[in-house]
């Protein structure tokens, strides 16, 4: 039987589930076998996600993109469980697989030996992520969220140690509470509408009568708090930098996309549920997203400047990235959303590469070297050997040169300088905010847009300052007792691959941007999505006939 795309839709969930479960039967000493099984399944995931991406995106502009619906129980929608693949889900799947493969290769350097069941946890995390991107109903979203979170608890604690257990305790407690909020929100929405299918909800929500409106809105609000915790919006984000900083490098690298799951869900649900009536763009939801996003950028900017270690710095960069995305969502314009999607891909790749790079850089450093520049000079004494080297001007060691180049590339990406994709992303967002056709509709550009622009540029500047500072200390003037980090070939290659991906994004910016625009437009006009799901044909005639 030829596998049609409709059947491939479930593969991103099944492959990691089966591969992950199989690995439980293997002895933990058989790491080669485990690692090759994981690599194999991740390669398969990447191939399938690219196929699915090509399936959803057809070049003709008129169609809203193809939507594949997979009916798990073969019940006609809106009954039972279904998986829905559209452009946005396909894009997120591809991004997940693109991150997963380098991260996995990186972990084979040494991290997968640091504890038990690394590969199983990693694959289950991928399953949770893919499931969350594909699912078409709210409750399964919860289930896949939990799969993802349960695996992430294990990955945070991978390698154990005091710091990880302390941070893990907070992380798990907060996420358990978030899950409970998720359930309350789902229950409220179900109580009002009587359905959990996202497309069906989109049809029924505009028909809700006045008395139930408050219930529905409070349900949606509680639900979004759960996602905002995940995405790390400002007052809900204090757990994030610490957890990401102490998590082992490969886990942190894949966590970079985990905070984007919250963003993905908000983007999809807000526009699907409340997009059709003008309520969302004018109601409190968009305002909260906008101001919350701005506050998050501000908080992240301060945090980036104040970070004493590179790990925390990267954690705060995640916050800046989330804040930018949330604020762009709060503006509710298709053009801004398109830029935000591009930014999402670019910043996720960059942050993921940064987390892996940091681990390689810090490997050679002792505690003193990772302390803030000013404090360091106070108790730094120059090692004789290093001083000699500096005077003679010995060529920079090759490892340092490679690491330094990657570090600089990460900096350029996160700051948003040309020529890499970070610049394009920020440029598109900003130009969309101030685009003339929007300005002609509303005479003046609102003050929040200026604030957004200022914060976006400032956060870039702060990132630049912080990264130059730590870069100088890590590469240019390595201080006391710095030994050359021993970096394996398979550890630096993944970082380079991720950075090269952003280079491809830059060079192919035209087609990628067209894809993002099409995605944003179909998000803002979800009618084809709703119809595609509701009219999905069942595979066979229903198994039983109802007898009168």
């Amino acid at each position, binding site marked *: 039987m030829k596998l049609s795309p409709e059947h491939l839709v479930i593969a991103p969930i099944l492959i990691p589930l089966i591969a992950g479960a199989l690995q439980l039967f293997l002895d933990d000493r058989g790491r080669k076998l485990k690692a090759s099984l994981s690599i194999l399944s991740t390669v398969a995931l990447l191939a399938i996600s690219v196929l699915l991406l090509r399936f959803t995106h057809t070049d003709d502009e008129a169609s809203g993109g193809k939507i594949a619906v997979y009916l798990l129980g073969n019940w006609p929608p809106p009954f039972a469980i279904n998986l829905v693949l559209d452009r946005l889900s396909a894009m997120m799947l591809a991004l997940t697989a693109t991150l997963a493969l380098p991260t996995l290769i990186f972990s084979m350097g040494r991290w997968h030996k640091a504890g038990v069941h690394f590969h199983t946890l990693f694959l289950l995390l991928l399953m949770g992520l893919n499931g969350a991107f594909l699912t078409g109903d709210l*409750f399964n979203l919860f289930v896949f969220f939990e799969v993802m979170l349960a695996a992430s608890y294990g990955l945070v604690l991978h390698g154990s140690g*005091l710091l990880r*257990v*302390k941070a893990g305790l907070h992380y798990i407690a907060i996420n358990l509470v978030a*899950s409970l909020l998720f*359930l309350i929100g789902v*229950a409220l929405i179900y109580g009002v509408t009587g359905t959990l299918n996202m497309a069906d909800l989109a049809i029924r929500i505009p028909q809700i009568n006045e008395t139930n409106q408050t219930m529905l809105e409070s349900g949606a609000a509680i639900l979004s708090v759960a996602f905002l915790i995940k995405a790390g919006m400002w007052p809900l984000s204090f757990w994030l930098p610490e957890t990401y900083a102490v998590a082992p490098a490969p886990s942190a690298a894949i966590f970079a996309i985990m905070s984007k799951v919250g963003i993905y869900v908000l983007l999809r649900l807000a526009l699907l549920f409340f997009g059709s009536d003008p309520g969302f763009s004018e109601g409190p939801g968009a305002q909260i997203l906008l101001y919350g996003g701005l506050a998050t950028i501000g908080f992240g900017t301060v945090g980036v400047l104040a970070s004493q270690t590179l790990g925390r710095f990267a954690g705060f960069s995640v916050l800046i990235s989330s804040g930018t995305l949330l604020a762009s969502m709060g503006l509710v314009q298709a053009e801004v959303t398109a830029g935000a999607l591009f930014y999402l891909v670019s910043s996720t790749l960059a942050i993921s590469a940064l987390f892996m790079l940091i681990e390689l850089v810090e490997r050679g450093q002792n505690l003193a070297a990772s302390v803030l520049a000013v404090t360091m000079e106070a108790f730094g004494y120059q090692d004789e050997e290093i001083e000699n080297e500096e005077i003679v001007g010995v060529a920079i060691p090759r490892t340092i040169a490679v690491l330094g180049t990657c570090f600089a590339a990460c900096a350029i990406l996160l700051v948003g300088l040309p020529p890499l994709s970070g610049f394009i992303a920020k440029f598109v967002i900003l130009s969309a905010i101030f685009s003339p056709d929007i300005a002609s509709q509303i005479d003046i550009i609102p003050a929040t847009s200026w604030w957004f622009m200022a914060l976006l540029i400032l956060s870039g500047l702060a990132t630049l300052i912080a990264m130059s500072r730590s870069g100088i200390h890590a590469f240019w003037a390595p201080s006391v007792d710095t030994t050359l980090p021993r970096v394996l070939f398979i550890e630096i290659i993944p970082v380079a691959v991720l950075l090269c991906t952003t280079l491809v994004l830059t060079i192919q910016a035209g087609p990628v941007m067209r894809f993002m625009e099409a995605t944003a437009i179909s998000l803002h006009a979800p009618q084809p999505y709703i119809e595609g799901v509701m009219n999905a044909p069942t595979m066979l005639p229903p198994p039983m006939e*109802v007898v009168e």
Partner: protein
Amino acid sequence: MELILSLGIGILVGSGVWLLLRPRTYQIIIGLGLLSYAVNLFIFSAGRLIVGRPPVTQTGVRVDPATFADPVPQALILTAIVIGFATTALFLVILLASRGLTGTDHVDGEESDR
């Protein structure tokens, strides 16, 4: 019955939140337990409070849905219970690991100065 259920949920949530904000890990886990009971009851109430009606229909007979209880919330609760149980067990392990590594049951791993 509505009053009893809503009071029950309210008391459970109140106690759960209070315990959650306490500094000891044991209090946190009990708080989380209470909260998850409350949430499960809440999901149940989302399917309306109905007594004495079956949730499962007979095969091959046309039935009036109004005479049946809503089976979806019950299915949701079952799933939520299973997931909640597993995550609570996991949290318990972390709690013990933290206790072993830090020597204290404070959530921050160290006693506050006060």
